[in-house]
């Protein structure tokens, strides 16, 4: 099995979604929000760090007001580029502004069973199976914990999940399911086993943490404590805003970007104040709430615009971005899923978001579908190909060949054709068969994608994790379980 990871790099396509003046205006608005309105940090440790650096702290409301100067100064120590390390160093991912990688999406609660097709509650075995299939695909560059291992105790669930992924894949693991200091410390211990100690882990972070903010203008206390632990040990850490128009953010896009930005950069600044130089990333999956239900939409023009605009903001702060794309609101792999996942991923890719999250979900990141996972991988490949644009040089203009064929000939027999035919994209799941072949079978992408996932699960053998490391990890996990 190939160890290659597909990424978008050296793109020819460009999009200017916000002018530098507009970005500055959003930045100024953000600083105004943090200074005048404040952001909630319900963590004693976080409040103390803010107070020690001269921010105004309202302990009763746990709200911090920090000057623009303090925020801007703190952000200066963010490293602009670093790599997400993988268990297999060949699969390290440079977050350098010139690569777009896609991960599995997370963190869902149900799975469409790969064998029976039945929709059911997610469990640990699903985390293993998804990791194993993702390990085999070229497109998935890193894992997000995809579904919740609901058959494991809540206190150690997040740890069982990352262990299961490491045991089934050599690629980088990112979790959004470590919610407190204790879990974060255990996760660091586990990651250090793979890296070969804590100092090595700092150089080769095989684990990264993503914490959701609590919009509008708040953070979760446990998540904040976990993020501080991760930053202390040099694990890349990001805050993700999901501030949504109408509910957790204003109805207007610019205002919602400012709310989300205030959450992300205040959290990021805190990590830098505590541990200057800690690797951090910006994360966002902003959307509009549905006008009728108030629910998460997981798609639509607003998502597409946020997908492109957010990387402009993270570039302004010179930190990598993890952008929510895919994550359709569709209930099954269908027209809506195709539109939402293609456009959101295209818009996030054309601005070179470093990480995209991610493949595999239906119903707004709630229901895992193996067919959707494989089709999302194909969407990424299509966009990757599109982003390469059109190369114009003597070789690609092919004048000699055009002259040789002349009016009325055909190009099938030309050496130039043989040489370049593999430049043409070959889809796995698009139906380009003659009509009668389709008529006889009446199958489609969903069937082929599911079949591919099944074969992969059956055949793919990931490089195993050292059994001793597995056993050590199990001990770390069981320590709090025994208490």
């Amino acid at each position, binding site marked *: 099995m190939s160890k290659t990871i597909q990424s978008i790099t050296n793109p020819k396509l460009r999009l200017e979604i916000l002018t530098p003046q507009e970005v500055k205006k959003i930045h100024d608005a953000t600083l105004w929000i943090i200074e005048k309105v404040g952001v909630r940090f319900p963590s004693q440790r976080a409040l103390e760090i803010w107070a020690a650096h001269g921010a105004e702290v309202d302990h009763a409301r746990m709200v911090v007001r920090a000057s623009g100067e303090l925020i801007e100064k703190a952000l200066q120590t963010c490293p602009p580029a670093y790599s997400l390390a993988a268990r297999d160093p060949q699969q390290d991912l440079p977050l350098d502004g010139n690569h777009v990688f896609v991960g599995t999406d997370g963190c869902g609660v*149900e799975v469409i069973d790969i064998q029976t097709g039945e929709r059911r509650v997610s469990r640990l075995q699903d985390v293993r199976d998804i990791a194993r299939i993702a390990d085999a695909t070229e497109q998935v560059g890193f894992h997000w914990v995809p579904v*919740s291992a609901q058959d494991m105790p*809540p206190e150690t669930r997040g740890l069982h999940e990352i262990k299961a992924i490491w045991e089934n894949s050599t690629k980088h693991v990112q979790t959004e399911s470590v919610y407190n200091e204790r879990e974060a410390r255990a996760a660091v211990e586990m990651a250090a086993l793979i890296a070969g100690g804590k100092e090595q882990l700092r150089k080769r972070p095989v684990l990264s943490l993503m914490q959701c903010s*609590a919009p509008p203008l708040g953070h979760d206390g446990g998540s904040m404590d976990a993020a501080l632990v991760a930053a202390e040990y040099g694990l890349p850490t990001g805050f993700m805003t999901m501030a949504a128009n109408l509910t957790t953010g204003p109805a207007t896009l610019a205002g919602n970007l400012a709310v989300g930005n205030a959450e992300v950069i205040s959290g990021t600044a805190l990590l830098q104040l505590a541990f200057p130089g800690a690797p951090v990333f910006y994360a966002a999956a902003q959307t509009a709430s*549905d*006008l*009728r*239900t*108030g*629910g998460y939409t997981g798609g639509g023009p607003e998502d597409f615009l946020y997908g492109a605009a957010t990387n402009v903001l993270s570039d302004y702060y010179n930190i990598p971005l993890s952008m929510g794309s895919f994550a359709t609101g569709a209930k099954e792999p269908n027209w809506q899923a195709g539109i939402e996942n293609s456009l959101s991923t295209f818009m996030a890719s054309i601005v070179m978001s470093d990480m995209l999250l991610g493949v595999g979900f239906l119903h707004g990141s709630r229901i895992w579908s193996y067919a959707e996972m494989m089709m999302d991988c194909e969407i990424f490949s299509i966009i990757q190909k599109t982003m390469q644009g059109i190369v114009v040089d003597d070789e690609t203009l092919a004048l000699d060949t055009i002259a040789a064929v002349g009016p009325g000939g055909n190009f099938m027999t030309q050496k130039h054709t043989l040489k370049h035919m593999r430049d043409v994209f070959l889809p796995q799941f698009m139906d380009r068969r003659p009509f009668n072949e389709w008529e006889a079978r009446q199958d489609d992408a969903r069937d082929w994608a599911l079949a591919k996932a099944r074969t992969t699960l059956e055949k793919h053998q990931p490089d195993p994790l050292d059994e001793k490391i597995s056993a050590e990890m199990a001990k770390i996990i069981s320590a709090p379980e025994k208490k």
Partner: protein
Amino acid sequence: MNEDLYQKMAQSVLDGDSDAAAALARQAIAAGVDPLEAITQGFVKGVNTVGESFACGQAFLPELVMAGEAMKAAVATLEPEMQKRGVQRTMLGKVVLATVEGDIHEIGKSLVGTMLSASGFQVYDLGVDVPAARIIAKVQEVGADLVGLSALLTTTMVKQKEVIDELDKLGLRKKVKVMVGGAPVTRDWVQKIEADGYSEDAIGAVGLAKRLMGAA
């Protein structure tokens, strides 16, 4: 004779204008209008109209929520006068709402609260990160008919079950219906913890609450 006032009251709710609604409520008290009449002939008409436009796709959720808030403001203003006169609104039921312990996600729960209250339920909203014991205590204190439990994380969702188990232990389970909500909540989960129902959105929650009270 109060038609003009009632019309303005309905309009204030339609406009989602809490200040105007409260001012009209005060005006009614000063003019000696029966507070219950003001509610049923005035403000409720506005809520119903917004509800109808919502149902046929002409109004959207923010309009419903703002109408609900205006209604709440009006009722709160009329409350002292109702007490003075010794009258009470007929409510559909008493609901205790909370986001469970360990979970700070508020907005969905609050939307449900506003919609329930606008639909004629007495709502006791305990806020977020509420331990089971506090929820149970409130249920007993007010004699609640319904409990609504919100959770956004699979790790905190288990607390919904804890509350149900506690109600069971105290022999309150037959009397008190439990509805649950939050992104990770599914029908399977509802069956597993033996809750009485769930909804994925605030409008559905109102329908559910009415059904559980036998009012729809």
